[in-house]
């Protein structure tokens, strides 16, 4: 049964959508100091190469109106957040991460894809108590312990960092984040290949995760949890479930969930907009998420911090419309939207009768017209979030039971790609 009336959810969604529109129209908002390049949309980089991460407990909001206890990693003196910050470094940087632990249990970090990681200056690796494996990495002790990890970021790409201690508990509880290593040669290439160039104003990340609220409840209550009972009920992008995913970065009503997932692009154009958007997909979940962006295929250019290239450096990139992002995997993709038909109401209308507006249900993001940059009549009483005839395409997990939130459908692991008319909304 539904826990909340859909009407209530709809109102909430509409309030959020209005906020999106207002904020999208306002270029500058107050941002946290730790983040570089304050922005309403797009990947928020926390720049290094020296970082300080502190674990906190806190609460997040879920699309069904629930509040869930989580753990998270925050930069510097920032308050609790979920997920951890995106650590952006350059290829060749010596990355240093000081982990401070405020939780009442030992935690650690592992860095899959990074070689020769040091912990407090010594080679890091599995930690044993006698013959028992106690952690995948050196820990920061409970209640204000600390440990310093360092490594040289040898390869460009997208990587996960996550807890290496009791990971079946600590990762789904929120101790994870992303690392982006930019090639030494070009900061707006995904890899050291010209084919991976992207528009630096259109760089996005989709860090996919899942939450079992019973696990969270057990941790909040100081109880143990048997992982055999693990059963996720929420599925998130960048720590939020739809429709929160389309709210701006640092939306004030999502204080512990700073990162949005709305991508904003314009149609590809040979001279005016030749470069694609970059989208970095990562998963810290427990099963493949078959992520499906509507509107166009993505071009997969890298996997798990490796460019798709052959032994002779030949380009092995390929196009896909469903991206099966597996646990711990990262997929680096380029995205464009082309307008091959160039439909417009004056000289090139769609070749079908536009029905009477009373004969259709209008979605809240529909402009009332089939045409990019045009708006049309909308039934009386309909609320539209469309600003200037821009297009919206959904991008979502196609294991469709995962775009629900513990009983509320059409929420969860979904977001939108917004396609503005050329030149943007005027």
């Amino acid at each position, binding site marked *: 049964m539904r826990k909340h009336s859909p009407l209530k959810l709809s109102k909430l969604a509409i309030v959020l959508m209005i906020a999106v529109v207002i904020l999208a129209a306002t270029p500058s908002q107050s941002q946290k100091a730790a983040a570089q390049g304050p922005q309403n949309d797009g990947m928020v980089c926390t720049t290094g190469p020296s970082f300080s991460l502190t674990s906190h407990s806190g609460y997040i909001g879920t699309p069904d109106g629930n509040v869930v206890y989580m753990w998270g990693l925050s930069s510097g003196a920032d308050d609790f957040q979920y997920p951890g910050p995106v650590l952006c470094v350059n290829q060749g940087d010596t990355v240093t991460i000081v982990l401070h632990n405020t939780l009442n249990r030992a935690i650690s970090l592992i860095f899959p894809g990074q070689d020769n990681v040091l912990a407090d200056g010594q080679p890091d690796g599995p930690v044993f108590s006698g013959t028992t494996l106690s952690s995948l990495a050196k820990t920061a002790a409970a209640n204000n312990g600390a440990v310093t990890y360092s490594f040289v970021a040898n390869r460009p790409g997208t990587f996960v960092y996550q807890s290496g201690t009791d990971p079946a508990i600590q990762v789904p509880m929120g101790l994870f984040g992303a690392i982006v290593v930019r090639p030494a040669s070009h900061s707006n290439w995904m890899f050291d290949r010209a084919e991976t160039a992207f528009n630096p104003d259109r760089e996005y990340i989709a860090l996919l995760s899942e939450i079992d609220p019973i696990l969270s409840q057990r941790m909040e209550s100081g109880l143990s949890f048997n992982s055999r009972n693990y059963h996720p009920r929420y599925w998130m992008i960048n720590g939020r479930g739809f429709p929160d995913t389309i709210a701006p970065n640092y939306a004030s009503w999502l204080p512990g969930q700073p990162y949005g997932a709305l991508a904003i692009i314009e149609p590809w154009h040979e001279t005016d907009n030749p470069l694609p958007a970059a989208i970095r997909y990562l998963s810290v979940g427990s099963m493949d998420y078959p992520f499906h962006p*509507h509107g166009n295929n993505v071009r997969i250019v890298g996997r798990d911090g490796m460019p798709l290239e052959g032994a002779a450096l030949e380009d092995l990139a390929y196009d*896909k419309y469903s991206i099966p992002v597996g646990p711990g995997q990262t997929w680096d993709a380029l995205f464009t939207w082309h307008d091959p038909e160039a439909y417009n109401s004056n000289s090139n209308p769609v*070749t079908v009768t536009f029905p009477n507006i*009373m004969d259709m*249900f209008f*979605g809240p*993001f529909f402009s009332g017209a089939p045409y990019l940059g045009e708006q049309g009549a909308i039934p009386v009483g309909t609320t539209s979030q469309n600003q200037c005839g821009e297009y919206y*395409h959904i991008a979502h997990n196609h294991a469709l039971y995962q775009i629900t939130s513990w009983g509320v459908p*059409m929420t969860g692991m979904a977001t939108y790609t917004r396609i503005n008319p050329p030149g943007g909304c005027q």
Partner: protein
Amino acid sequence: MKKNMLSSRLSRRDFLKVAGAGLLVTGGAGVLKKFLLPEMSALAQATPPNKIFAATDGWIHLPPSPIYPPFHPDDLSPDPMFTTYIFGFRDVTGQTDAQILNQKMKAQHSAPLFWLNEGEEFKLELRNLGLQMRPDLTDAHTVHFHGFKNAIPFFDGEPSSSVSVPMNRAFTYVYRPHDPGTYMFHCHVEDVEHVHMGMNGLVYVRPAQGDKFVYNDGDGSTGFDREFAMHLSEVWFESHWADSHIQLPEWSDYKPDYSLLNGRVYPDTIAPNGMGYDSNGDLIPPSSHPELQYQPISSLVTCNAGDRVLLRFSNLGFMQASMTLEGIPMRVVGKDATLLRNGSTDLSYMTNTITIGAGESYDAIFTAPPHSGGSGADVYLLYNRNFNRSHSQGSFGDGQQMTEVRVYPGTLSAQTDPNT
């Protein structure tokens, strides 16, 4: 299902106000026809659709045993040979309005297989006939052409960014396909429910290079003699039962009981195709299989030794499927409607197991092996090796997401239609 609607949507009462209550109450073909007619002022520019699909509810057959009380078989079924309540599409192209109206509660699964030609505009009209088992619901429907490149939202079918089709209304989607390959389509309204309930199927785009090629490969490497669509879907009894009994499942408990191949499980998968429609517009069941009346698509692969056989896989279940063709290697030449090639670099590969995630498609070609002698067919099995995804009797066989590949010694005539 969504009982109450966003404030942006029209309520049923609004329709009654607009249309006049008497029209809907009396119903009937003549009245509905007025609803479905396009605006008079625009008739001049309208050309007829290439296809008309109806969206409605219905009943299908899955093995009634083992039972799984109270969910399977469904006690509200109108006939014991039908076990499972569905939502679905029907191809009603060429039917009269009266015939089309007769198809309410006669949905099929999986959805009708169809194809388009690269570069040729294609119009698909969708008519929403309503849900007979659920008079309390006012669900709209759409067609989402999954994977269509550079779609505009108006024809994409995702209801929040576009429009959807209320009951007793029609809408025409226009596609100009530029990219050959294998796609799928589904309703995107209340998508976890409508897709799972059966509103999904396979669609493909033939390349300009010719009907017997998968892609414009330029070298014949994707050529084939015969082609078979293998559309994967799933049935979770509890959710189907919930829909017929005016209940809601908890979707995060999702666990499919049956995994289907073109809407059937083995050995029904090897039963023949349906035989068109009768004078009422209803489907004529496959020969000797009245229970498969609303599951008209056969998955039986027949070919001659030496034939190049194309298998088009698509998956609109929610779980990964690992389809194994035992005894015959396949070459995967395309994924997600994309030729596996980058410039001059061939990215195709040989395998005997293809793992297909939700919303993915794979194009695989095999060469039928030599015949072992005699006049009968050599039989090979194509099955999902995730065996526990089907509610079988405990032994491997009946109830599985499986079909047969039958290789003949050259006695088959040329293929005229896919899946024949």
